[in-house]
């Protein structure tokens, strides 16, 4: 591999080539010499020109900017696919782990090129720290079928493999729901994961068709929701899914919420209880600064709240 100054016109698009590694959007770091970018470019000799191995976004940005020449790492055409991958992945691994979808793309290209199992296993092991089994390969390959919107979201959120795999197990209609959730309401990864996993577990437990389940949940993704309404819509879906996944727990939780709402709490008192309900009872914490606050608290305990606190104890007891 050599560093060479390359005419951008010699880099030709290769429509059959899969872009394996995701790239940061390139940022120009030296405007006086417009061939220097934050992301390097890796090329390989191909039919008298060059094909891109890494740096698709950079090349595209440079072309748009009208740049003629760049400095790039160039692999000779004799370099085998796996050797090229080894070099480029070493570069990527210096700044971040290899994303699950990149492993999936790598395995897909290996399939297309007919790379023997033992050769791809070595690189798979380097990427994932696990051995390549039939089941693992099957699971990874399924990631390639996820919608690009889902893929981008999971990469952006640095989602663990289990979240990727969970999505592949969701039926198509549920995947579309998850896409709508991303497009419309920008959920956090933990809430996205929770909703997806609970949907999957409901489907497995109840053996119900996904279309029927979503109809019964009756949650719609509305167009043009105001930015401040997004959180509300996510919370709505989350609540619907949770109450279906944990019906008894939700019922109990609502009972407690109702009992809590029925009590007019003094400003200086806080209630704590085990949210898993394993520890019975509750803890009341009172912060008292002066005699007035103490009097207020004593009145609270001796007033109408007493019966309500007893009711609450029965529910949490």
């Amino acid at each position, binding site marked *: 591999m050599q560093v060479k100054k390359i005419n951008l016109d010699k880099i030709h698009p290769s429509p059959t080539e899969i872009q394996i590694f995701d790239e940061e959007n390139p940022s120009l770091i030296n405007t006086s010499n417009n061939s220097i970018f934050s992301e390097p470019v890796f090329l390989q000799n191909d039919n008298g020109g060059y094909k891109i191995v890494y740096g698709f976004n950079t090349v595209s940005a440079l072309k748009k900017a009208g740049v003629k020449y760049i400095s790039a790492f160039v692999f000779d055409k004799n370099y085998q696919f796996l050797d090229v991958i080894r070099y480029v992945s070493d570069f990527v691994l210096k700044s971040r782990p290899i994303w699950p979808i990149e492993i999936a793309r790598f395995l897909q290209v290996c399939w297309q090129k007919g790379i023997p199992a033992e050769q791809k296993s070595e690189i798979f092991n380097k990427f994932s720290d696990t051995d390549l089994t039939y089941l693992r390969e099957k699971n990874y390959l399924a990631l390639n079928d996820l919608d690009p919107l889902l893929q981008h979201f999971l990469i952006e959120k640095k989602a663990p493999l289990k979240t990727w795999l969970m999505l592949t197990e969701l039926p198509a209609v549920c995947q579309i729901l998850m896409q709508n959730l991303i497009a419309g309401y920008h959920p956090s990864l933990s809430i996205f994961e929770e909703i997806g996993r609970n949907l999957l*577990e409901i489907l497995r*437990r109840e053996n119900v068709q996904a279309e029927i389940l979503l109809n019964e949940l009756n949650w719609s993704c509305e167009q043009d929701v105001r930015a401040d309404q997004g959180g509300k819509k996510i919370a709505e879906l989350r609540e619907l899914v949770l109450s279906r*996944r944990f019906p*008894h*727990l939700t019922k109990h939780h609502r009972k407690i919420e109702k009992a809590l709402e029925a009590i007019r709490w003094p400003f200086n008192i806080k209630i704590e209880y085990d949210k898993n*309900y*394993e520890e019975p009872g509750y803890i009341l914490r009172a912060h008292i600064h002066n005699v007035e606050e103490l009097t207020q608290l004593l009145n609270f305990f001796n007033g109408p709240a007493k019966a309500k606190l007893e009711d609450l104890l029965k529910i949490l007891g």
Partner: protein
Amino acid sequence: MQVAADRLIKKIYLTPEAEQYELTAQILSAYPEARRIKIKSPQDLAITTTNDDPKKIMLLTSSKGEVVKNCPGTSTPYLCCRYQVINQTLNCPLDCTYCILQYYLNQPATIIFTDHEKISAEIRQKIINQPGRFLRFGTGELGDSLALSASQFFAGKLVNLFASVANGVLELKTKAAQLDLILDQPHNGHTIISWSLNPLIIKRSEERLAAAPKQRLAAAAEAVRNGFPVGFHFDPIIDIPDGEKHYLNLIDELYKRINPTRIAWISLGSLRFPPSMKDKIIARYPHSRIPYGELVHGTDQKMRYFRHRRVELYRAIYQRLTAISDAPFIYFCMESPAIWQAICGFAPESNAHLDYLFAESLRRRFPELVREIPRREDYENTS
């Protein structure tokens, strides 16, 4: 004579020290079709059996260190009964989806310790060390007590041992229905044979290789006819739609088939497992619905149905079990005092107190088994 699960065993590995024991020869005679392979030490097994199913392989060897231990139970606030476990058979051929062994055991075979005299000496020593306490021992903690002939041969020797023990009882806990090697052993009432019970609908999905509940009850009736006290364990209770109806029908069937006065104890316990076991269950048993129950983290960090749901599940079962005169002793396995209180109206004050309550109940209901009136202080001062 073979029991049903014996057919699964395809290979038997032997270490040199195991060959000297009488129990080894007995076990080998019960598996004439299994391939026999001699190895120098148990460590060699891991190299030899890389791709084999551990449930189809048996290793006969001698034990290293203690085999008889206090049941590990679980942490406070959950109450445990201070049971003594005899870990002679490690692993189980029955392949139940919820089995904790898939979490605890990571061995390439079902391990059978054949040095029964050393194990018997350990049991005797435990009994001698605590003369005032009535001790309960069992072999069903890390394997089914009777699912394999190999375990039954050992159990038979223990039945003989316990027949002459004054302050102890042996429990053989199983989901099997063939007890040919046990029933004719002289037991003197000091062996309790017990069965885990779940309704047929749960057996079909979660306990595929175990005997059907009716077969287990038929075996229990046979044991009672042979003079054995019996026990039952509704554990793990699994929350399924209409589950209450299935459990109540099973209890009715139990009392129809078995005279309650011959039942030493009945335990109740709900499904529980360490969180990381959930993925193992999903991977190994994709048909199983149990990982998708309403489970939360208990204070011991195990996944359990949330407490109020457990109370609902237990209440109906407990009420049906106690709706007869002279109901058997009923206890909860690894449950919190709050659950005891909600269901029974009282809670044992400690693990030692629960241990005492066992002895007290057995003395009242099986005076020929517990000959002296148990004293609470004898239980409080021991571990």
